[in-house]
């Protein structure tokens, strides 16, 4: 029982990271109808920025955090301009391939600059964790959960209670109509990329102390976050969050009870089963085309 609760805590914590990256996927998908396969690299780049500023340059953790997040916002904007914008009228396949190219570029540029050695990023707090009864609560996992909760609430407020949020929603539902109403669609999409890069970046910074900071961390996280979005029902915000937690829990329990080497395969097996049996996901993507 203790093991079960302990694993659940770990699974939910790692799931929160997947949920944040999955949110980035969903937001970009809703705004542009394409999947950004470089979403995971945002997490990886942000983690490396933290290593540079907090570890190498020795800046205070929160200063390094702010600089890294600003860097991610910039990366999101540049990404939008170079990778998405020139292809915006060319259908999903060219954009998808372009984001894959960008993903390879980002991860290998970091590899070229920083080398293949995995880096270590300390956690936000010096206290490693607390023992509550038989359960050990790792402080970084608590930070992950708290930040994820705050971000989800912030996003809810942003989309449901601000004019900017309404404009973003209008853009994602019907770009032509939105632009006829005077909403600067290109700017809204730019904002979406920036916001998604920041979300992915925060996820990367949060999870870095738990994992190692490595070139592969981006694609590992992104593939699972992507699986989460499909399980949750593509394009659905609540689904992405739930899907993220589901993947985190499945993989933690799979590793503990079934097989550690095959840990990374569980998410994908669940995903394929899901696609075969319930392709619309938990919440369902509205798939229809007007004749």
């Amino acid at each position, binding site marked *: 029982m203790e093991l079960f609760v302990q694993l659940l805590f770990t699974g939910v914590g790692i799931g929160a990271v997947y949920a944040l990256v999955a949110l980035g996927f969903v937001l970009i*998908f809703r705004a542009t109808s*394409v*999947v950004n*396969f470089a979403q995971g690299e945002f997490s990886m780049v942000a983690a490396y920025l933290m290593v540079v500023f907090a570890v190498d340059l020795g800046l205070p953790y929160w200063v390094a955090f702010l600089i890294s997040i600003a860097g991610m916002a910039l990366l999101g904007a540049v990404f939008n301009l*170079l*990778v998405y914008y*020139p*292809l915006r009228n*060319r259908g*999903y*396949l*060219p954009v*998808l*391939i*372009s984001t*894959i*190219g*960008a*993903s*390879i*570029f*980002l*991860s*290998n*540029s*970091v*590899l*070229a*600059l920083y*080398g*293949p050695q995995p880096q270590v990023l300390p956690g936000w707090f010096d206290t490693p964790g607390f023992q509550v009864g038989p359960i050990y609560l790792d402080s970084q996992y608590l930070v992950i959960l708290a930040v994820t909760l705050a971000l989800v609430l912030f996003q809810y407020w942003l989309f449901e209670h601000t004019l900017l949020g309404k404009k973003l929603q209008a853009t994602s539902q019907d770009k032509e109509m939105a632009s006829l109403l005077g909403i600067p669609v290109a700017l809204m999409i730019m904002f979406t990329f920036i916001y998604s890069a920041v979300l992915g970046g925060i996820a990367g910074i949060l999870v870095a102390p738990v994992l190692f900071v490595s*070139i592969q961390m981006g*694609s590992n996280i992104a*593939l699972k976050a*992507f*699986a989460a979005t*499909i399980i949750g029902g*593509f394009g659905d915000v609540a689904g992405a969050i739930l899907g993220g937690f589901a993947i985190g829990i499945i993989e933690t329990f799979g590793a503990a009870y079934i097989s550690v*080497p*095959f840990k*990374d*395969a569980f998410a*994908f*097996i669940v*995903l*394929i089963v899901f*696609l*075969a049996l319930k*392709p619309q996901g938990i919440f369902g993507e509205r*798939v229809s*085309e007007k*004749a």
Partner: protein
Amino acid sequence: MNMRGSLAGQIGYALVALVAVALAATVKTDGYVANILMQAATYAIAVFGLSIVLGLCGQINLAQAAFFAVGAYAVALGTVDYRLPFWLCLIFGMGVAFAAGALLGLSTLRLGGHYLAMVTISFQQILTVVLINAIRFTHGPDGVSSIGRPPGFESSQSFLALAVAAMAISGYLVWRLAHSRLGRAMRAVRDNELAASAAGVDVFRVKWVAFALCALLGGLGGGLFAGGFSYISPDQFAFSDSIVLMTMALLGGVASPVGSALGTGLLILIPEWLRFLKSVPGLYLAIYGAAVVLIVIFMPDGVWGFIGRRFARRPRARSSTAEPLVLGPADSGSDVALEVRGLAKYFGGLKAVDGVDFRVRRGEVHALIGPNGSGKTTTLNVVTGLYRATRGGISVDGVDITGLPAHKRTIAGLARTFQNIRLFRSMSALENVVIGAEREGNALVAGGPDAVLRRARSALAFVGLEERLHETIPSFSYGHQRLIEIARALAANPTVLLLDEPAAGLNTSEKKALHVLLDRIAAQGLTILIIDHDMTLIAGVAKHLTVLNFGRRIADGSTAEVLREPDVVAAYLGAS
């Protein structure tokens, strides 16, 4: 499309291929060059597979390296661990790859492309994990060495010749596939899925077949790769290798096997020239990634497409006069060609169509009219199977089609045009119409490909466009595109022709020409169901009207009677 015109091309291809095989079999090269050639030949086969899935069918496959691995491991484990003959292992590997491709396709192709991207990545990752960790079966990260070769091809030189020959043959098959019925169906699916299914193409089947063929070629390439290098390990077949294969296809030009081969050659040679870049880990792949983005943005058709456009020749229409178009709709003898019974379609709470009945009599022009939002197009979409009916039934020529998917309804005898024109835009007018003529169950094209071609020409001549049959769709005016769509429907020799607002967007003279065309079609006895807002056209061509308002039928009868009914006048002009 011009099958005889490409005969010279085919002979040229055969000569080049023979010379290539002969050179590979005779010219002595050092091991380094031989290895590069071996890699290029086997990779090219896998890239041909991608040119089917990505180029012809417009689907994505991010697991080609995994299918390559399936072929490679089948040969490696088969010849080393189980002492089986090379050929048996190769065929087994291709079979497993084919089955895996078909299965992945079946599970996901009904959904959008991003699912397919994800599922193929998942397959790739799972396979990599298995290859590394299932050590007792796969030898794990150490890989498999001393892989066997088939008798007669034991030397590197002769095996290279074998690989080049396999490459030449698969390249030829992929090249010809594009101009076969299946290949045309794939291109139709790529250009416009809805129109493809409305033209009688089984979209789902076409997609999984494309996918399975792609995987099959991946398996073939992989099997030959294993034999060629006699050593393989899991890291040769990683996700990044799938990306490399896809980049090769994109760089060369995904639309043609020549482009694919060119791309493969370039991406194997360029890194060899840029070997010094490999001294900094990552730099080389970073350039690779940036190249992918640049290629997609600046060379959408790849290097070969880029070159091809410089030397593009427009094939001339041969001056043979087309035969007159014969419309011989199937006729079971019953008086009703199309019957709609209590048809309803709800979108959530919205009752777009709510219990509509009408019968279209054989040989009659029947119009479905009503104000905007009255449910006309929804009715047509339910009848043709783009939407599933909430309630009610539909029969064509006495056969119930209510439960059939769209392409089966077309096979059953429906043909339609769309309110917003849906043509296969990258294809020529003739190819568009050929796809219509190829409808399964079209009794008038029993004479094989030549009969199909003749019928397509006749249909284009019928609408007055036979002079321009080799031009691609974007070069036609809006009005002419409408005519091509009608020609595509007519070529299918349907039992009932359904026209969704054919006059929308046409100018006055085009409308008059359309009116004449519809009269000519009706004169041949084809049953027509037409939707339009132009009452002059409707009153001129239709014998029978069904009027809808708010998803219900408010009038039904002969044109003259219905137009006098007060309800109809009120719905159109507003109640006074």
